[in-house]
């Protein structure tokens, strides 16, 4: 068996951290005010700036941000600076609807994105399609992050904790604290995980900058071993850049768990400040990760795709002769585990609320708040069990699903964004736009046709078609009336 990256002290620290999450779940349970959906899924809408900002931050920066972004930067070089742009742009996406949606949510006590769609359009099919897309995207998110946590734990413990064991253990911890305190527990654990993530990235960045040299001092080496990082951007690169930014601007900003955090703010000022802080975070998280990975590419230029995902761990493992480096490695592992857990728990909470509020409650309108909360908790356990089974049994080849989830999710953006601004917009216009946009996207993604027509993601062109259909249908209806 290989020697793991974590020593005994590191493993004890990780275990203490995981046990503390259950403790937070218990505190969340004790602090709950009533057995209602509003209290369980939105934490009683009482989050201040610190908790709201940190839960938004930890939820948005998944395990993929820490591991996957570094790997992408290693392989794509400076082109991956696009991630700094799109992580800032997500907040721009929120700003197209959040101020008005927040006001509406306070007035009508929304819990899920489905509540808003139902209230705004009063159209069952449209609501069901949007809820289904939300659940699909979130399940995908859960699945891939669970797989990632299994790989990380297996790698850092040198196989002492197996892939399946790691997934099962983490899933049990998450589902326990989530069902104990709901959004309150999830947001509080997210706050700790957010601090760990930020501290981890900044400390590791400082260590690597000092030990491996700055970007400037690595320029000559980089030009020798990774000359392609300095090639002239082609037209295809520019189109790809634009397409990625558009897809993420409209896709991630309408994630159901993000919408729930908008509802959960204590007041408008809290939400406003949290968003302003979120704008700064790509410069403190994504940018340092890209710089670390590119310095890594200069020193370790020949890694394959899988090894490149572990570039940060590789760079740190070569520094173990330095006193205290074991603590930095432990911090990185804790930050990676935290980033993944905060994403999975938020996705799980959002799916459970979508199922309970938008499916179960609609079929059982007489169900009491207590019963609905209980159904939601039970559903969380079943959902987690299914996800764990799929994460362990499905092959990694299903990971292509991650790439298509945003292309599908961004099709619901017009329903959310246009809906809050244009009161006269009809549900039929939104429905036809959504169906055509989805149909177009799936046609290109699931058939032998190119999935990047003219260099754009199919989902981006689908969104364009979606918007054209909405505008045309809306105008035609107005003319005919």
């Amino acid at each position: 068996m290989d020697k793991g990256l974590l020593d005994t002290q590191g493993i004890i620290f990780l275990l203490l951290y995981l046990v503390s999450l259950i403790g937070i779940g218990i505190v969340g349970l004790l602090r709950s005010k009533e057995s209602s959906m509003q209290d369980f899924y939105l934490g009683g809408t009482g989050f201040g700036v610190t908790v709201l900002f940190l839960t938004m931050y930890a939820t948005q920066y998944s395990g993929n941000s820490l591991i996957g972004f570094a790997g992408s930067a290693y392989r794509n070089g400076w082109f991956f600076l696009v991630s700094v742009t799109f992580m800032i742009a997500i907040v721009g996406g929120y700003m197209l609807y959040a101020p008005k949606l927040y006001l509406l949510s306070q007035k009508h006590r929304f819990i899920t994105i489905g509540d808003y769609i139902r209230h705004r359009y009063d159209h069952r099919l449209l609501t069901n399609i949007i809820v289904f897309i939300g659940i699909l995207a979130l399940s995908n998110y859960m699945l891939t992050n669970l797989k990632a946590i299994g790989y990380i734990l297996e790698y850092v413990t040198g196989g002492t904790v197996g892939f399946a064991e790691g997934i099962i253990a983490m899933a049990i911890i998450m589902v326990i604290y989530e069902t104990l305190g709901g959004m309150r527990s999830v947001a509080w654990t997210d706050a700790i995980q957010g601090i760990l993530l930020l501290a981890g990235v900044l400390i590791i960045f400082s260590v690597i900058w000092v030990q491996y040299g700055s970007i400037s001092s690595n320029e000559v080496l980089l030009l020798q071993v990774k000359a392609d990082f300095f090639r002239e951007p082609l037209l295809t690169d520019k189109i790809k850049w634009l397409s990625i930014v558009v897809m993420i601007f409209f896709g991630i900003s309408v994630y159901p768990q993000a919408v729930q955090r908008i509802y959960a703010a204590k007041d408008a000022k809290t939400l406003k400040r949290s968003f302003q802080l979120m704008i700064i975070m790509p410069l403190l998280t994504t940018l340092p990760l890209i710089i670390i990975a590119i310095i890594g590419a200069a020193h370790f230029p020949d890694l394959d795709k899988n090894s490149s995902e572990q570039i940060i761990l590789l760079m740190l493992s070569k520094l173990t002769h330095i006193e205290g480096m074991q603590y930095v490695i432990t911090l990185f592992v804790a930050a990676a585990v935290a980033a993944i857990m905060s994403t999975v728990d938020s996705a799980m909470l959002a799916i459970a609320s979508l199922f309970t509020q938008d499916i179960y409650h609609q079929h059982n309108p007489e169900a009491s708040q207590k019963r609905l909360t209980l159904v939601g908790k039970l559903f969380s356990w079943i959902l987690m069990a299914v996800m764990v089974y799929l994460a362990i049994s499905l092959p990694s080849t299903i990971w292509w699903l991650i790439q298509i989830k945003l292309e599908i999710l961004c099709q619901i953006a017009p329903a959310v964004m246009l809906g809050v601004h244009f009161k006269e917009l009809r549900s039929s216009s939104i429905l036809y736009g959504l169906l055509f946009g989805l149909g177009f996207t799936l046609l290109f993604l699931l058939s032998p046709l190119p999935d990047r027509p003219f260099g754009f993601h199919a989902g981006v062109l689908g969104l364009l078609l979606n918007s054209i259909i909405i505008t045309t249908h809306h105008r035609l209806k107005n003319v005919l009336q």
Partner: protein
Amino acid sequence: MLKLSPLVLLLTLPLLPSTPYAGLPLWAWASLGASLFYAIVLILAIENEWDEERSDG
């Protein structure tokens, strides 16, 4: 400003040449600068226009 701010994202496109400068290609400096500019525009727009956004329409 808030609704038009996404147009600033067009400035982040890699449009300049790749001449290295302090370790980064020139276009990368320009993209980072434009992203920073977009961040500042967004922060100011949220500060000044949030209340208008909530009340109009």
